[in-house]
C-alpha cells in the first residue's frame, strides 16, 4: 500500500486529517458531556454582559480603530512572503552544493529586500506607530479647555 512516495505522502496527510477530525470530535463530545452535567437556570440578570458590575451602556459592537485593520493588511503581505520564501529556503543548500549558490542568494535576497522595502515604507509613513493617532487627537483640544480658568 505504501510503496510509492506519493501514496506515502497521501497517507501522512490522511493521518493529519484524521487528527483534525478526532480533535474536533473530542471537543464536541466534551462540550456535549458538559451540557448534560451542568445545571441551567438562566435568568435575565445572568444574561447581561459584564461591565464591572454596572448596567451595560450602549451596544457591544463599537467602531474600532482602523489601525487593527492596517495590522491585518501588513500581516497578510508578510504572510504571503513567508509562504513564498519557505520552498526557496529548503532548496537553497542544494543549489549552494551545486555551485549555483550566488544566484540563489541573489534571488532570495532580492525577494526579501523588496519586501523589507515594504516594511520600511509602512514604518516611515508611521503606520506602525500604535499610539500616534489617538494621542495626537486627545492631547490637542483638552489643553484649551483646561487652560481657560
Amino acid at each position, binding site marked *: 500500500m505504501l510503496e510509492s512516495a506519493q501514496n506515502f505522502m*497521501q497517507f501522512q496527510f490522511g493521518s493529519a486529517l484524521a487528527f483534525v477530525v478526532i480533535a474536533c470530535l473530542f471537543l464536541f463530545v466534551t462540550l456535549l458531556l458538559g451540557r448534560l452535567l451542568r445545571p441551567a437556570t438562566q435568568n435575565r440578570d445572568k444574561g447581561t454582559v459584564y461591565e464591572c458590575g454596572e448596567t451595560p451602556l450602549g451596544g457591544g*459592537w463599537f467602531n474600532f480603530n482602523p489601525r487593527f485593520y492596517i495590522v491585518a493588511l501588513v500581516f497578510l503581505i508578510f504572510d*504571503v512572503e513567508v509562504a513564498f520564501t519557505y520552498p526557496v529556503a529548503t532548496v537553497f543548500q*542544494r543549489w549552494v552544493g551545486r555551485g549555483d549558490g550566488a544566484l540563489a542568494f541573489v534571488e532570495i535576497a532580492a525577494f526579501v529586500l523588496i*519586501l523589507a522595502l*515594504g516594511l520600511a515604507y509602512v514604518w516611515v509613513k508611521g*503606520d506602525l506607530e500604535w499610539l500616534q493617532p489617538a494621542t495626537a*487627537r486627545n492631547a490637542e*483640544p483638552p489643553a484649551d479647555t483646561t487652560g481657560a480658568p
Partner: protein
Amino acid sequence: MHQLHTQTVGLPATITFAILAGLTVIGALFTITRRNPVVAVISLVGTFFALAGVYASLSAHFLAILQILVYAGAIMVLFIFVVMILNRDEITRVAARGMVRRGLGVVAAGYVVWLLASVVANSSATPLLGGPLSEPGADFGTVASVGASLFTDFMFPFEAVSLLLLVAVVGGLVVSRSEKQEDDAEETARRRAQVATEIRPESMVGGPTDATANHEAAHH
C-alpha cells in the same frame, strides 16, 4: 482524476474526496445564504479548509497548506476585520437589493460558470471526458519541487510577486490612510467647534464634557 484515484488508492480516497468536496460546497452555500456577514466569513473559512483537503488528496500538498495559511488564516481575518469595522446596521444595508443589482449578480455568476465550463470542456485532461492522466511524479507537489521551480522556470514571476506584494502594501495603506485622514480632519473640525462652545463662560463645567469628548475620540 476520479478514475485514477479509485485505481491506485482505492475506496478510502474516493470517500475522502466525496466528503471534502461536499463540505466545500456546503460551506460555499452557507457563505452566500447567511444573513450575518461574520457567519458567512466563517463558512468561507470552512470552505477553504475543505478545499485544502481536496488539494491534498490530489497530491498538491504545498498548495493545500498555502490555501489554509494564506486564504483561511490571513485573508479571511482581514475580511472579518472589515466586517467588524462596519456596524451591524451598515452591514444589512450592504446586502444587494432591487432587480437591477440582482440581475447583474446573476449575469456575473452565469459568466463565471460559463467560463469554468468552457475551460473544463476544452481541456484534454478532464476527468469528465476520461482523458489521459499520468501518475504524478514522486516529488510532485512537494515543497522542494516548488522551490526548485521557483529557482528555475518561475524565477521572474517569483521576483514579480515580491514587487506585487510591495505595491499591495503601499496601495492598501494609501487607501486606508486617505479615509483616516478625512476622519481626522472631520474629527478636528468637530472638536474645534465643540471647544469653541465650551470656552464660553456659561458652559465651563469642565469634567463631563471632557470625559465624553475623550470617550468619543477613543472609540474612533
